[in-house]
């Protein structure tokens, strides 16, 4: 399976990483090389094998569904690139 330029453009878009048009051919080639390496997995007989969901067979712990934290608005906003009036600020989303 090799990745063409249109697929590379689509993957970059899905990943929300800006890739200039001129860089797409090199990216497509690079991704194709890595996917070629993964093709080896097709040699393995996986019939009847369940995909692993947890490497250690343990039940995840549950806890009471109660508030354990809060009132830390200033701390949460402290590292924001742009915070105004107690909110994260972003460019206009809705026209």
């Amino acid at each position, binding site marked *: 399976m090799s990745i063409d330029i249109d697929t590379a453009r689509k993957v970059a878009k899905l*990943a929300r990483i800006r890739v200039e048009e001129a860089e797409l051919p090199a990216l497509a080639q690079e991704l194709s090389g890595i996917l070629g390496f*993964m093709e080896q997995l*097709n040699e393995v007989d996986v019939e009847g094998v369940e995909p692993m969901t947890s490497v250690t067979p*343990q039940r995840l712990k549950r806890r009471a569904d109660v508030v354990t934290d809060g009132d830390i608005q200033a701390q949460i906003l402290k*590292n*924001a690139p742009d915070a105004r009036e107690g909110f994260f600020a972003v460019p206009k*989303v809705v026209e």
Partner: protein
Amino acid sequence: MTHLNELTISAARDALRKGDTTAVDLTMACLTAMDAGDGLNAFVHKTPEIALDMARAADARIKAGDAPAMCGIPLGIKDLFCTKGVPSQAASNILKGFKPEYESTVTTQLFNAGAVMLGKLNMDEFAMGSSNETSCYGNAINPWKVDDRQLTPGGSSGGSAAAVAADMCLAATGTDTGGSIRQPAAFTGIVGIKPTYGRVSRWGVVAFASSLDQAGPMTKSVRDAAIMLGAMCGHDPKDSTSADLPVPDFEAALTGDIRGKKIGIPREYRMDGMPAEIEKLWADGTAMLKDAGAEIVDISLPHTKYALPAYYVIAPAEASSNLARYDGVRYGHRANLKAGDGITEMYEKTRAEGFGHEVQRRVMIGTYVLSAGFYDAYYNRARRVRALIKRDFDQAFAAGVDAILTPATPSAAFGLGEMANADPIQMYLNDVFTVTVNLAGLPGISVPVGQDAQGLPLGLQLIGKPWDEAGLLNHAYVLEQAAGFVAKPGKWW
């Protein structure tokens, strides 16, 4: 005379308890060595004031007779760990300026035990790399040197390895997703252990691939690894995958007696084109364990060759999800936007500017293998192969094997820049012996055992049963004693 910064944790602990030295003196010696070691680019954020405050507090505790083993021990902390009020940016420009408002569980536990933080350590960006060459801080450099070339300390915990090997700290934290503790430990002649998945809390450690990531200690001896691991692990309600199991006294497990234990030698690890030196090292290590009374058995782990391709599907898939959070909204870098740019442009420009090349590549590979139409063909198939890789190990242990011995790396440390034009797959091959252990969630330890013809350190890896870090450390201790590796890099930096 041994300088204080050259001490092991165990020697420093004993000296502190006897009153032969103080935490402040130990810390001062390390801070001096750290400043003198700038040429290695291991420490990337230094915290000398914090270190001295912590050292003074440790001295007070020792004086009061309340001194856990790690009390007063100066450590370096990998930049992947969130440390409150101190830059924690996973060696990425996308987290430039990020100062967490919280402390990771691992560092909380270490600091509660009295350990001293000297500063943050270099690494590959988001722990993605095997040579510390993807860091936004530039390369960390191996203190071992045999000619004009500067060598890699390995990766991703390259700064941790360089700092410990160069005696800038007594020990350091590392993290290991595919070999990132064990490979740099082998490249620098130190000890590094990746515990069983779930043994150490991942809370507050910047996530790369959540089903594979584990933190562990990087130290100058197996005894130090036992001491420091004990302080790092334990159940944490904030990490739902952290195991609620008692933590044994790992140091007490170092009896040096492995008589009657079964050591498996997996035939599939004998790779085509394996350098003769690695082959010999492995045979030497096998003989050492045999001489100590262990029984050596040949075993088969038939799916070994599929571990790397499975890893390079699963790890990028998880990374693409984990790294979706870096969007320029809540923390870290945001790109300068042009008039009219909307939120999509903000995401795309921010991530293009903030992520380095290797991280972008892995996020896109992960995006692709998780995308509609390919999820079954790549991601689900890789998870099924992963189940088979784990089953190989389960069967070996069920047949009575106590530990498995393999090389840690396919070569000694290579020169920085030597892989610059290589195919990315060539760099991925560095993980060939270590990555299986992450996929199976097992504990693995790298122990320095010998040197190559040029004098560079070489390590062997021991793999243990799930939750049997105690037994694994004891096997490693026997190997360490038998190998008698004492070489140190000559100081050139």
